[in-house]
């Protein structure tokens, strides 16, 4: 579903993403972990085309990631939720429905708004929403087109406990529905439960990319090691 080959993103002389390669098979859920500044968000943005890659190759569903065909495959939930000031919550969903050609969008939009407790805010303007509300709108917009591949970049930042619980529930439902997910988060336990594979990034390079069990065997080999322990071990400063 997603193939990334030798991706480099350079800012000046510094490589924010330093020659990384990986792929995601259809139906796979992969957790992308890494300390602040590891290059997770930059990787996401290069894949979805928000940033220009310095070099490398990225394909989504067999198409170049910048092509219109590739864009039909995926949705992206950014770390910072961007909404239009003068569009209401419902109008954001109508906008996305038009853009992606979603038929019968109203029923789906109502379900999503209900799930994220936005139904009473449907007529609120974007500029009047709190950051958490904006994040919820952003998630709803990403889920509305029912994409095959989802990129979640720190989706739980700013969400209230109930919304976090709902997002975790959605991860599970999406996994059961056979969707492919790449999710970056600092809430390691939320990935541990659902991820088929873990990818650990530091200073723009992939330190480990395997199942949790294999990574544990490879790097720690201690009984009772959690993903958090493994993450801290792999990303500790030399």
């Amino acid at each position, binding site marked *: 579903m997603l193939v990334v080959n030798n991706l480099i993103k350079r800012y000046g002389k510094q490589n924010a993403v330093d020659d990384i390669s990986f792929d995601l098979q259809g139906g796979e859920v992969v957790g992308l972990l890494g300390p602040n500044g590891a290059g997770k968000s930059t990787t996401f*943005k290069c894949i979805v*085309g*928000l*940033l220009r890659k310095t070099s490398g190759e990225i394909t989504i569903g067999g198409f170049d990631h910048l092509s*219109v065909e590739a864009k039909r495959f995926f949705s992206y939930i*950014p770390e*910072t939720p*961007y909404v239009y000031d*003068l569009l209401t919550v419902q109008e954001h969903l109508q906008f996305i429905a038009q853009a992606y050609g979603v038929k019968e969008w109203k029923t789906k939009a109502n379900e999503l708004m209900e799930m994220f407790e936005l139904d009473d805010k449907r007529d609120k303007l974007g500029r009047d929403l709190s950051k958490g509300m904006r994040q919820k709108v952003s998630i709803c917009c990403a889920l509305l087109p029912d994409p095959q591949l989802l990129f979640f970049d720190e989706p739980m930042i700013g969400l209230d406990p109930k919304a976090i619980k709902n997002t975790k529930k959605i991860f599970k439902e999406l996994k059961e529905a056979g969707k492919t997910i790449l999710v970056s988060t600092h809430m390691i336990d939320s990935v541990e439960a659902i991820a088929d594979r873990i990818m650990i990034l530091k200073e723009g390079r992939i330190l480990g990319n395997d199942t949790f069990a294999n990574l544990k065997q490879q790097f720690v080999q201690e009984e009772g090691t959690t993903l958090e322990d493994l993450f801290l071990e792999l990303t500790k400063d030399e």
Partner: protein
Amino acid sequence: MNEIRLLFRKDIFILINNIKLILRNPLRLIPYGAFVAYFFFIYSQRMSSGGDSGSSDLQNMDSSALEQVDFGTQNIVGGLTLAALGILIFQLYSSTKKNVSFFKMADVNLLFTAPVKPANILIYYMARSILPALGGSILFIAYTASQMANSFDLTVGNMAFLILAMALFFFMISPIRFLVYTLHTKYGVIEYIRTGVVVLGISMGAMILIPGLMAEKFWQGMFSWIASPWFDFFPLVGWSRGIASYLFHQNLILSFSFIALYALAYFIVVKLVIQFAGYYYEDVLEATNTNEEKLEKAKGKKEVDEGTYSINSKKQLALPDFGVGAKAFYWRNYVHSSRQDFHPLFGIYSLSMAGLGILFAGLSHFDWFSHKILNVYLIVILGIYFMAGIGRTSIGDLKKPFFILIPASWTSKFWNMIKLDIIQMALFASALVVPSVLIAGLSVGLIPSFLISILAFYLTGFAINFIPQVALEETWDKKLIKPVMIGGIFIFGVIPTLILSIIVFAVTEQFVWALVTMSIGMSMIAGILLHVSLDVLKRLEFREM
């Protein structure tokens, strides 16, 4: 007075830290150095050319004789007074809607929660607000005076009184605004104050209209009242004029008397504010927050609010879909515009701007104004749309990830992003130029050339900002190449077109031919830039603010 010492010490620390920052990176002084060099250059040029032409003619003229014979000077004095009156009335009216704040959010978080006397904090910050007023005035006067260096003797005294006149005017506005809002929160008298401001505005309008109608020609009489010496006693606006007129009369006592009037007024206002403000923290919270956001936007730390100036934001809409794919952007802009104004295609802003043009045409028809005013107005509108094109790159769809993510071709996304602007412009330009040309009896050639010019100027403005933003990497190259690129577009495109238009105007003495030349030239530039824009569009990157 402990608080005053505390705050003074804090400001000294801030000043020291700023100086340290400058010392650490002296390169940041380069733009200021360039300004100083520019002012010095203009001063020296003007002074030398002024020396050739003899002495300062304007300064030596008898100001009482001026109003009888020199309508030009009367209109300059009247125009400046009117501008100051406009600012004053606008500021007073704004104070009935929203409070003014002297504070920063750091003050709210750290100072308002501390055991300090609110009144002392207010006194300190109110007094300190003279500094930005003075700084702004020094810059403004240094710039404008450099342009007038051959007409006036720019002695220390002249400059000092000019700076004081401007600084005191702006300095006094904030405490008065604060007082108005304070009276409102304490006594709920906002409606009375608002009515008073409206009456003041109408009276000022009448003071222009009545003498204008009484005169042989409207423009000869319109400023005869507000430009006359007795208007110097009108609070703030007149007082500042009285201080600045030292330039003409060189009478220290007279100008100092007006400064004394300011001092007295300030003392009274501060006394009243302290008496009525009470525990004012809540009153300034919203204004402080808004100021902080504006500052962040100005520094580029925060995304520009595209909902600013929306006058119909509460409007409920139930618009059907316009189509699939990139058409969603046109729909989005349509919804946005519906809330920004009363009609998405032709709103109150367009109506008032078109109305003003038609008014000029009407006045020209009855020979109250020269039709040249309308010509200048059309040029100003072109300038405004050029600037609007430049600003379009910084807001809206291009600043949202959706523009990149949505599955549609770049060309269709681009077209749907600007489609509504083009329709709005075409409607507005037609509503302005068609009746104006017919009423004023001007050449019909102005109609197509103005319509083409407005679109060309908008697209050129858009592309000038957009192309370097997208095509250049976010490195030093961008900082160096961007001015070269923009300069190149101006030097080889826009400026030759403007010069050619001026030459055509000089030869034909017909504004219509100048505009036709401009429309052809600008269309060619816009066409080339549009082609480049579409070419680089796919390189668009999303940048977090």
